[in-house]
């Protein structure tokens, strides 16, 4: 059990890292973009500005 928990902890740390909000923000941005793009609405701006918003939010939290 300890090894399984360690295995998942390693991959969580490796992929998600020290700010889980980045991963959550990326998943949300992709989901919202897919939702809008599949209604034939031009949504490239949403993807770009969501990524920039995630970056700014994460840097602000890191600088507190």
């Amino acid at each position, binding site marked *: 059990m300890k090894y399984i928990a360690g295995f998942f902890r390693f991959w969580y740390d490796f992929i998600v890292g020290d*700010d889980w909000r980045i991963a959550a923000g990326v998943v949300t941005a992709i989901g919202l973009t897919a939702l809008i793009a599949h209604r034939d609405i031009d949504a490239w701006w949403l993807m770009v500005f969501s990524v920039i918003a*995630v*970056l700014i939010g994460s840097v602000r939290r890191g600088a507190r």
Partner: protein
Amino acid sequence: MTRGVFLFLSAFLASGVEMVEALTIVLAVGVTRGWRSTLLGAGAAAVVLAGIVGVLGPAVSAVPLTSLRVLVGGLLLIFGLQWLRKAILRAGGYKPLHDEIASYDEARTQAQHAVHGARKSVDWYSFTVSFKGVFLEGLEVAFIVVTFGAAQRNGVRIAAEAAAAAFAIVLAVGAIVHAPLSRVPENTLKFTVGLLLTSFGTFWAGEGAGLRWPGDDASLVGILGLLLATSLLMVRLLRRRHGVAGLTADPSGARA
């Protein structure tokens, strides 16, 4: 063409940065405790990494391209944003710059104080530290090579060539100077890699989500430019907030 150049550059820089860090650990342990077990550990890590790439590569290639681009783009975005965030915080003075000399000295001190297994044929301390250093630093490179390769035609070849070129250069320089590569402007490289990974991630995740980018591949340059401008602005604002006057927005953290 644009994608190919960006892809080579991203894989080359990302591999180079990680390899410099791995080399620092291997050099410190090798110089302090001897080379045989240290090189055995580094070699074993390289074999395990090759195995992971060998298994992951074909497995990832079997996934449909649209789903793959969402997955790969998302992963690259998460990695890229984390690299960029740390590089901005370092350049802004909110996080200490990574110091290869300090890392080297720390690893040497730890190696000197660890118990020597003189009678054993393999020094397990050297083997384990060297294995861990090469494996953990190399895993990120392996991930980048596999994901880049999977999302673009000839991607694996381009990314693997870039990683091999970085490996050859770092190894050659390490063998010549036999000391940590402290002159590498590490934060500038991490800043650049973060920008490139985030740009690729945004582009591929967007394509996978069903977007049509204006200008196709050329929009990569636009995404990169926007991210660069935002990042430099954040570095400038952080430095001003930190109360240090007379600084440029140079992401190396070098003071003007």
